[in-house]
């Protein structure tokens, strides 16, 4: 059996395999050039945390680009929403609930997501209902929200953020630890296997052709190995001694005299990213909204003639993008522990690049959530890898730019060859 045929039987997208292959090549190359410092649990943990914010936004950018729009404002929006959340948790909520109340971080997160959705929805309204091109509206947004971020505090940086809120950024105490990570990993594995075999059962029930059992089992095996391998890797990174002591003290547990064996586990921002990615995948594939997003991207006229309200759909897509930008603002401000008014600068370009490297076509109709997440990971790997190797900053930009164009060229050739 040829390799291509085997992949076909497995039902694995060749493009996905290509992207993961490219990612591994990048990792191995950097590992060689850094003398083995790149592929360590510590570095991969940091990489996962650094990727989370851009990847969360990239999942929303997939919908935006699939419907032939663009959103240039997400970086500035992230800064503005971050500022709003900073003021909310430092100057507004403590006065209401008292310092250190659990309500502070929860309400701050809600405020951030709602604000993001509101801003995004407003831009979506202008785009959908007033028919102004998204490029213009969000280019305006890029300037407006960056300026607005400055106005919130007249340019002052807001710090320090709420202690619990900061854990959402993956810093000290910002990961699940060994036990919870294994629990999450096992639950995710079981869920994935159940989904694969449930789908098979339903197809068989309808009398549709199904993949051979070995193919399903292989896919399930790969998924399980991927999830559990990731958890094992994250658990292999120990929490530094001093931080571990602080965490135990904060929990009110006894601090042993000897060395403390505490694993980081999966970082909380990564958990947030995984939840977002799963939800967005369900939205894309299993909801009417997602179906309409792709139909509109494929043929707007056909979508309209099918009775789809494209204006309202556009508003919702941009509101969703805004809400996800709110979540990304939570992650990136929590990671820094402070909010300056340059938070998120140039993120719009990273997010768009991630979505595009992940196979989202600017001509519309094509794109996947998992692709965008892998695209974000590839971008971040390149950036951190080059920084570790000590590549000059100008050369870093050149490499990232070349990779972006190259990825699209390969994608176009691939599509042409397979007639997609």
């Amino acid at each position, binding site marked *: 059996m040829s390799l291509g045929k085997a992949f076909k039987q497995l039902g694995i997208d060749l493009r996905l395999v290509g992207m993961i292959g490219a990612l591994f090549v990048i990792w191995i190359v950097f590992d060689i050039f850094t003398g083995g410092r790149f592929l360590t649990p510590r570095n991969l943990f940091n990489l996962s945390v650094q990727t989370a914010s851009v990847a969360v936004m990239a999942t929303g950018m997939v919908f935006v680009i699939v419907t032939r729009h663009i959103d240039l404002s997400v970086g500035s929006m992230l800064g503005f929403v971050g500022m709003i959340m900073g003021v909310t948790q430092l100057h507004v909520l403590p006065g209401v609930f008292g310092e250190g109340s659990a309500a502070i971080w929860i309400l701050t997160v809600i405020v951030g997501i709602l604000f993001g959705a509101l801003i995004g929805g407003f831009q979506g309204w202008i785009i959908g209902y007033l028919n102004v091109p998204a490029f213009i509206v969000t280019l305006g947004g890029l300037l407006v929200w960056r300026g607005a971020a400055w106005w919130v505090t007249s340019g002052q940086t807001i710090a320090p953020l709420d202690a619990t809120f900061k854990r959402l950024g993956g810093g000290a105490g910002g990961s699940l630890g060994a036990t919870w990570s294994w629990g999450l990993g096992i639950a995710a594995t079981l869920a994935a296997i159940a989904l694969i075999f449930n789908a098979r059962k*339903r*197809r068989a*029930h*309808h*009398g*549709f052709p199904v993949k051979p059992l070995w193919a399903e089992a292989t896919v399930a095996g790969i998924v399980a190995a991927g999830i559990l391998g990731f958890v094992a890797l994250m658990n292999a990174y120990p929490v530094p001694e001093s931080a571990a002591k602080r965490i135990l003290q904060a929990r009110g547990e006894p601090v042993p005299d000897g060395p403390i064996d505490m694993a980081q586990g999966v970082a909380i921002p990564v958990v947030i990213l995984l939840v977002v990615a799963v939800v967005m995948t*369900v939205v894309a594939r*299993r*909801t*009417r909204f997602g*179906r*309409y997003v*792709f*139909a*509109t*991207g*494929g*043929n707007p*006229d*056909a*979508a*309209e*003639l*099918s*009775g*789809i309200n494209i204006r309202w759909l556009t508003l919702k897509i941009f509101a969703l993008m805004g809400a996800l930008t709110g979540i990304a603002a939570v992650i990136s401000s929590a990671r820094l522990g402070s909010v300056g008014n340059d938070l998120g600068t140039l993120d719009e370009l990273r997010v768009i690049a991630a979505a595009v490297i992940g196979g989202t076509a600017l001509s519309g*109709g*094509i794109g996947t959530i998992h692709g965008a997440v892998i695209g974000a990971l590839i971008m971040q790997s390149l950036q951190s890898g080059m920084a570790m190797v000590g590549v000059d900053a100008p050369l870093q930009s050149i490499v990232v730019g070349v990779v972006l164009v190259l990825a699209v060229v390969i994608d176009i050739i691939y599509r042409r060859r397979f*007639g*997609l």
Partner: protein
Amino acid sequence: MSAATRQGETPLVEMRDICISFGGVRAVDHVSVDLYPGEVVGLLGHNGAGKSTLIKILSGAYHADSGEILINGEKAEIRSPRDARRYNIETIYQTLALADNLDAASNLFLGREIVTPMGFVDDDAMEAETRKILKRLNPNFQKFHAPVKALSGGQRQSVAIARAVYFNARILIMDEPTAALGVRETQMVGELIEQLKSEGIGIFLISHDIHDVMNLCDRVTVMKNGQLVGTERVGEVTEDDILGMIILGKKPTPQTSV
């Protein structure tokens, strides 16, 4: 069927005195047409005669500036494609109006997805229904998982027809349904029209092919420059009469017309 038996019957569709302008150009100028159950009415005319525009008013894509539409004798408000679907008006567009990146089932159910009790789209149920109806319309159809972009012209046409037929259409609008088809597929469309007719469905057929029209239609309505030239029973006029209406915009002489 003679005109006499239709006298007391209520038409399925009546479009009365329809006008629509685009930027000062009268695309449709005081045109009235009607359609009875189990009848095929051909709409003929040159490109730009206004027939597609007229029909898009019925399918909800455009909204008439003036005039009214009656469905089963009752005034109907058709402001969007969704409204038209509510009156069981289905349209097969010349462009087919398919989302190329989606598969056959997603296109067939676009805007009317089958959902699970949880509110998620039920792709398996939709695929099962699609397999059923396409088995009837085009037994050779196999590519259920490919985006429709990867299908042949005939297969794409089958999907568009299946979409119109599946949802119990009572009024069917076919805009150039055979333009992109081979001989065998054209014949298939002809048979389908006969079958739908026998089920009491009324069909507006827009076509350039005068043979198609003579074979399939009961009546023809001819338009020129946005205006109605006239409506004739196919059995009572010759091809030349119809060509005269299309090209010269003149009604057949009283000897041949009734």
